[in-house]
């Protein structure tokens, strides 16, 4: 029976280290512990200087994404037991700059999230007196899968295109653009099209499909991007064959 398990944790302290290093910690093994529990144990009992992000510890907030044995996962949803007998290597999400230890810098993603306008755009809002915008279950089903995204950036850590070409808008942002494009209440397709149809938008994607393979919420960003490629190509043909249409 295993009583402890070793964690090899990526440490980077910019004010002390020029290069990152790995620090080993022995933590008690418990069947019901996830990686995040082990990190919290280290922080509380062994080494208070370890830095990492977490919040809800129930797979909703999207804060605790890290690389565990080379794979990007939500550490609150990944059990220690899976990696026995260890050691377990914990690193910050790949493809992002590291601020400190397991904390990455996410401004680039936040910017990309904003430029795809992830909200319902109306050409003209109808007056409140006319009531709410109604939607059928079938219309909801059109986009529901993409609305499950929690912005955990695990897909960015898995995407080799984003690693090599950081200008790529990336899987989650494009999936979220599709979440609004496919919403029957939205009228912002044209505005989003300008961003998505750039080279850094959908066309940078080479369909490695790892984003969909690692997504903890089964959003399938790769599918969203490929679907938009069809839309993008159709819109391009329309603009050539029918230049009078409003694109």
């Amino acid at each position, binding site marked *: 029976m295993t009583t402890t398990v070793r964690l090899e944790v990526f440490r980077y302290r*910019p004010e002390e280290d020029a290069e990152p290093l790995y620090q080993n910690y022995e933590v008690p093994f418990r069947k019901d512990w996830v990686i995040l529990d082990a990190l919290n144990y280290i922080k509380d009992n062994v080494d208070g200087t370890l830095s990492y992000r977490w919040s809800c510890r129930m797979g909703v907030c999207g804060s605790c994404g890290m690389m565990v044995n080379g794979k990007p996962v939500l550490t609150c949803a990944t059990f220690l037991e899976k990696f026995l007998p260890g050691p377990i290597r914990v690193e910050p999400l*790949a493809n992002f700059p*590291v601020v400190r230890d397991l904390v990455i*810098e996410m401004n*680039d993603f936040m910017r*990309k999230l904003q*430029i795809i306008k992830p909200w319902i755009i109306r050409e003209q809002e109808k007056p409140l007196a006319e009531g709410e915008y109604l939607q059928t279950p079938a219309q909801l089903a059109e986009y529901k899968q993409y609305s499950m995204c929690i912005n955990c950036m695990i897909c960015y850590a898995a995407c080799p295109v984003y*690693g090599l070409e950081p200008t790529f808008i990336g899987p989650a942002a494009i999936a979220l653009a599709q979440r609004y494009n496919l919403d029957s209440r939205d009228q912002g397709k044209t505005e989003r099209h300008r961003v998505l149809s750039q080279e850094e938008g959908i066309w940078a994607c080479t369909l490695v*499909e790892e984003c969909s393979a690692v997504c903890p919420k089964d959003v399938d960003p790769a599918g969203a991007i*490929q679907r938009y490629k069809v839309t993008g190509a159709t819109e391009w043909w329309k603009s050539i064959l029918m230049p009078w249409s409003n694109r």
Partner: protein
Amino acid sequence: MEETVNRNPLYTKYHPKWYRARIPIFWWVHKVPHIRFIARELTSVAVALYACILLFQISAVADGPEAYLRFLAWLKTPFSVLLHAVAFLFVLFHSITWFNLAPKALVVSLGNKPVPPAAIVALNYAAWVILSLGISWILLK
């Protein structure tokens, strides 16, 4: 906020000393899905090769019967036969992997029900078989 992608995401104002891992040239050799992806991308070279051979063939036809016979003789050389055999295997891999990915891009609904992905793959294969039979009928009749 401007509506463009940040041209240099590696630059952010007033940032502290961040650590950026370098991506090695052979980043793709460690994971099977990455190897499969690179293999699929590389097989497109074989597709381009086929296209080039077709262009050479058209050019030989344009140059007259003698040039065309020379081209046919080259096609029969062991080098050419080997090249075609290898290219054929690569193109086959290329086509099959892309056909299998087709349902990712094509989400079709019939009435209110979505068409199952397997049906979309099957339709692609069916189109492939029908076109191949059509072309062989024209060439061999």
